[in-house]
C-alpha cells in the first residue's frame, strides 16, 4: 500500500510539499517544475553513508533532484543525535537541529550492516546507485564491500585526514580538523589563543569540495563509462582554503598569523559603533573606500581626520603594523561612537565605503536585501517545529530545478518504498524481512 504511494511519488519528482514559504512561490526555483523529471540530478540515486563531514555534500545533490538514500543502523545514524537534539525528537525517530537541516530532501532506510544479510542489502542498493558517499568507520570493511559491487559509479569517501597516511586513524572533530588544517592559527588576536571559525565550518568546507569533485567524477562516469573513487580529506580541504598563507610562506618565507600583522591593513577589522559593530575595509588598495571614509570624517568635522591624512597613512606596509592598527582602532571607534549600524550601512552605500554591519543570526531576518530577494524559506521540521526558517538556495537558478521537497526523514521512513521496490527489481537479492527493524 505504501508502495503505491511511493511509486506515485516517484513519478512526480517535481512536487513541492514540505511547506515552502507561500510567498516563495513567486520565485521561479520555488514554483512548479515545467519540465518534469529534468532537474539536474533527476534519475541519479545517491547512497548516503555520511555522518558529518559529507552530510552537506549529499544534500546539495538532493536539492537538485537526486534521490539520496541514507542507510542507517538500527537506532539511527549518529548524526541524528548531533546537538542540540531533544529526547522527544529522537524517540520519535527524528533528529536534532543539525540533522534536520543537513538531511532535508533525503530518504532513510534502516539496514544492519553488522550482519551478512545487511551487507547484502547494502550491496544491492549500491548496485542501483550512480554515486555512493561514505564516511567509513575505521576497519568496518564497508568501503571494500562497496568497491566490490560491479558497475560504473562514483564512490566518494570523506574522512577527516584521508584514507592513507599516519593520521588516517586519528580521532577528529571540527576544531581538530580546523587546527590541523591551518585555519585556526589565522584567526584570533595576538597574545590570545588561536581561534576556531564558528559554525562547524570543516563540515561545510569538506562537503563543498567533495560535492564538486563528485559531480565532476560523475560527469566522466556518464560520459566515458569510467567509475571513480574520490578520497577527500577534510584537513586538506581546510588547508586548501587559507587565502594566500601558503604562498606567503613558500615565496616570501613569512608565516601569516592571527591579527594580520604584516599582511592586513589597519582598517580591515570589526569596530564598535553606537549599537553594535561594523566591519570596515579601507586599505589604500580600495582607494574609493579610503577616500570615502576620509571625506565622511571631514564633513563631520572629526578631529581625527588630520592624523589619518598624514604621511604614515600613505605607507601600505606600515599600515599593517600593530601600532597603526591600535591607533586606527581608537580613532575610528571614537568616530563611530555616536553612529548606529544602520546609519553606517547607509553612509557606506552612499559613499562607496566598504563597511557593513556585523549581523547576528537574528539580524539576518531583517536584512533588507535578503527580504527583498525572499531568501529565507520556512519548512516543517518534524520534531523541531512546524515552520522553521532555513536558508534558501545557495544559488538562484533561472531554471526551476532547486527545491526543498521533503523534511529530513524519519528513521526508516522509506524502508518499504526503497527496499521493497528494490527487492521486486532484484528478486532474491535481498529479503526485507531479514533486516533488523528500527
Amino acid at each position, binding site marked *: 500500500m505504501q508502495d503505491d504511494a511511493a511509486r506515485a511519488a516517484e513519478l512526480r519528482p517535481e512536487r513541492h510539499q514540505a511547506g515552502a514559504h507561500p510567498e516563495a512561490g513567486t520565485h521561479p526555483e520555488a514554483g512548479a517544475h515545467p*519540465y518534469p523529471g529534468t532537474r539536474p540530478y533527476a534519475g541519479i540515486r545517491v547512497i548516503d553513508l555520511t555522518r558529518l563531514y559529507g552530510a552537506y555534500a549529499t544534500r546539495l545533490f538532493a536539492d537538485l533532484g537526486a534521490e539520496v538514500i541514507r542507510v542507517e543502523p538500527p537506532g539511527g545514524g549518529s548524526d541524528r543525535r548531533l546537538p*542540540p537534539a531533544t529526547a522527544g525528537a529522537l524517540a520519535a525517530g527524528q533528529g536534532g537541529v*543539525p540533522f534536520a*537541516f543537513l538531511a532535508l530532501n533525503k530518504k532513510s532506510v534502516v539496514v544492519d550492516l553488522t550482519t551478512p544479510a545487511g551487507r547484502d542489502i547494502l550491496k544491492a542498493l549500491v548496485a542501483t546507485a550512480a554515486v555512493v558517499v561514505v564516511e567509513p568507520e575505521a576497519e568496518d570493511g564497508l568501503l571494500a564491500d562497496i568497491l566490490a559491487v560491479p558497475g560504473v559509479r562514483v564512490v566518494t569517501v570523506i574522512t577527516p*585526514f*584521508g584514507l592513507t*597516511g*599516519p593520521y588516517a586513524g586519528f580521532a577528529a572533530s571540527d*576544531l581538530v580538523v580546523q*587546527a*590541523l588544517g*591551518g585555519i*585556526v*592559527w*589565522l*584567526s584570533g*588576536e595576538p597574545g590570545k589563543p*588561536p581561534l*576556531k*571559525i*564558528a559554525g562547524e*565550518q570543516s563540515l*561545510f*568546507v569538506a562537503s563543498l*569540495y567533495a560535492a564538486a569533485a563528485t*559531480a*565532476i567524477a560523475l560527469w566522466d562516469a556518464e560520459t566515458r563509462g569510467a567509475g571513480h573513487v*574520490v*578520497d577527500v*580529506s577534510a584537513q*586538506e*580541504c581546510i*588547508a*586548501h*582554503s*587559507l587565502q*594566500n*598563507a601558503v604562498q606567503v610562506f*613558500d*615565496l616570501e618565507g613569512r*608565516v601569516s598569523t592571527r591579527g594580520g600583522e604584516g599582511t592586513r591593513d589597519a582598517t*580591515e577589522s*570589526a569596530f*564598535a559603533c553606537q549599537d553594535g559593530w561594523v566591519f570596515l575595509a579601507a586599505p589604500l588598495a*580600495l582607494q574609493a573606500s579610503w577616500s570615502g571614509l576620509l571625506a565622511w570624517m571631514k564633513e563631520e568635522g572629526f578631529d581625527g581626520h588630520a592624523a589619518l591624512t598624514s604621511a604614515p597613512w600613505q605607507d601600505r606596509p606600515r599600515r599593517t603594523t600593530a601600532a597603526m592598527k591600535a591607533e586606527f582602532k581608537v580613532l575610528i571607534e571614537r568616530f563611530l561612537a555616536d553612529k548606529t549600524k544602520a546609519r553606517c550601512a547607509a553612509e557606506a552605500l552612499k559613499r562607496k565605503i*566598504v563597511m557593513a554591519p*556585523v*549581523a547576528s*543570526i537574528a539580524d*539576518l531576518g531583517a536584512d*533588507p*536585501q*535578503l527580504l527583498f530577494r525572499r531568501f529565507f524559506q520556512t519548512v516543517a521540521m518534524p520534531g523541531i517545529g512546524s515552520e522553521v526558517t532555513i*536558508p534558501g538556495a*545557495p*544559488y538562484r*537558478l*533561472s*531554471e526551476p*530545478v532547486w527545491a526543498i521537497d521533503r523534511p529530513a526523514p524519519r528513521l526508516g521512513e522509506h524502508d518499504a518504498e526503497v527496499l521493497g521496490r528494490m527487492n521486486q527489481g532484484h528478486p532474491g537479492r535481498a529479503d526485507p524481512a531479514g533486516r533488523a527493524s528500527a
Partner: protein
Amino acid sequence: MTPDFLAGIRFADFTWAGAGPFSTKIFSDFGAEVLKIEGVARPDPVRVGGPFKDGVFGINRSGYFASRNTGKKSVAINMKNPDSRETLYAIIRQSDIVSNNFGPGAMERLGLGYDDLVRIKPDLIYLSMPMYGEDGPLAGMTGVGMTISAVTGLMAATGYEGEGPLGPGTHFPDHAANPYHAAFAVMAALRHRRATGRGMKIDLSQVESTINCMGLAVVEAAATGREQPRLGNRSPHHAPHGVFPCAGEDSWCAITVLDDRHWQDLCAVMGDEALAADPALKTEAGRLDSVDRVEAAVSAWTRGLSAEAVMAACQARGVPAGVVSTSRRLMQDDPQLRHRDYWQVVDHPEIGPARFTAPPFRLDGERIDLKRPPLIGEHTDSVLADLLGYSPERIASLRATGVLE
C-alpha cells in the same frame, strides 16, 4: 594524473580577484579549457596583490594569482574598448560557460549581460556571483570576503567569549563556500543542459551562499529562539573543548572531549586519577559546569609538553586532538600531508618552481597534477588564431587599435 574529464568544455572566464577564479580553477584542473579574459591596463587585482616571488613585484609573479589560476589560458582583451565586443562575442559563441564575479550591472554595461549573450548563444550557462545578488536595495554594496563574513552572522559568531566579534582571520567565504557552491552549480547546469538542451543563468549571491554554511546556526536560532553567544574555542555541548598552550612560544594543541569516554581517556593520558574519579566531572553537564577548572587542569598538563607530544598522547587513546598548525608546519613538517603528496611543485617561467596545494582529494589513488598558471596575455594570439580563425593581420590590427592588450 592529469585528468581530461571535462575536455571539450570551454569557459569564457571574466572572473577576477579571489572567489571567482577559485571557482573556475577546478574546471581547468580537470581538463576544461578556461579562457581567462583579462585586462592589462586594469589587471586582476590579485596579479598585483602578491605575495611575489622573493618579494619582488611583477605582474606574472604573484603566488596568490598563481594559486587561483592553474591550467587556465590568458587572453588579454580591453573589455572597455567597444571594438572588443565582436571578438568577445566570437569567443562566447564557442564557449559553454560565461563566468564573472563583477558587481551587478558591470557585465551589462560591457554588453555581456545574460540577456545579451543568450541571444548569440541560446544554450549558454552563465555564472554571475556578485556579493549580495543581482537585484535588491543593497545589490550595489561593495565588499570583500570579510564583508560577507560580517553580514552572514559568521563574524558575529566567531570571537572570544565575552568580547567583541572578530570573524575569520581570512576572507574565508571567498576560499570555499562561494567558489565551490559556484562550481557545483555549474556542473549541475552542464548536466541539465545535456539532458534538456537548455542552458541557465546562475545568480550566486555570495552572501546567500555563505548563509547556507551558517545553516546550523540559522536553524538552531529558529528552533530554539536563541543563538549561541561567542564562545571562543569552547563548545556549548562538550568540555573540555579548546586549544591549549604547549611548551614553546605561541604553541598550541586542540583537544576536544566529545563524550564521557573521551574524558576518562584524557584523564588517563594526563595520569590524573583524581580528576578521573571526580564524580562532578563524569558527565558532559558536570564538566560544562566546571569548565574553568577542567580547562585549567588540561592546560597544566599541556604546558609541559610540545604540541606534537600532546597530540600524539591524546590520539594514542583515541581522544580527538590536533596541533594548531602554521603554514610552516603544514608545508614543512606535517607527515600526513607529506605522505599524501599534498604539496605540488609547479614550475613557472617567472616565479620558478613553487609549491601549491593540490586539489584536496585523491582521485583513483592519485593526485591531480596541476598545470602552470598563465602569463598575462600568453594565449591571446593562439586563441584568436586557433579558436576564431583570425589571421595574423587581423590580430595585429586589433592590437594596434587597443582591443588586444
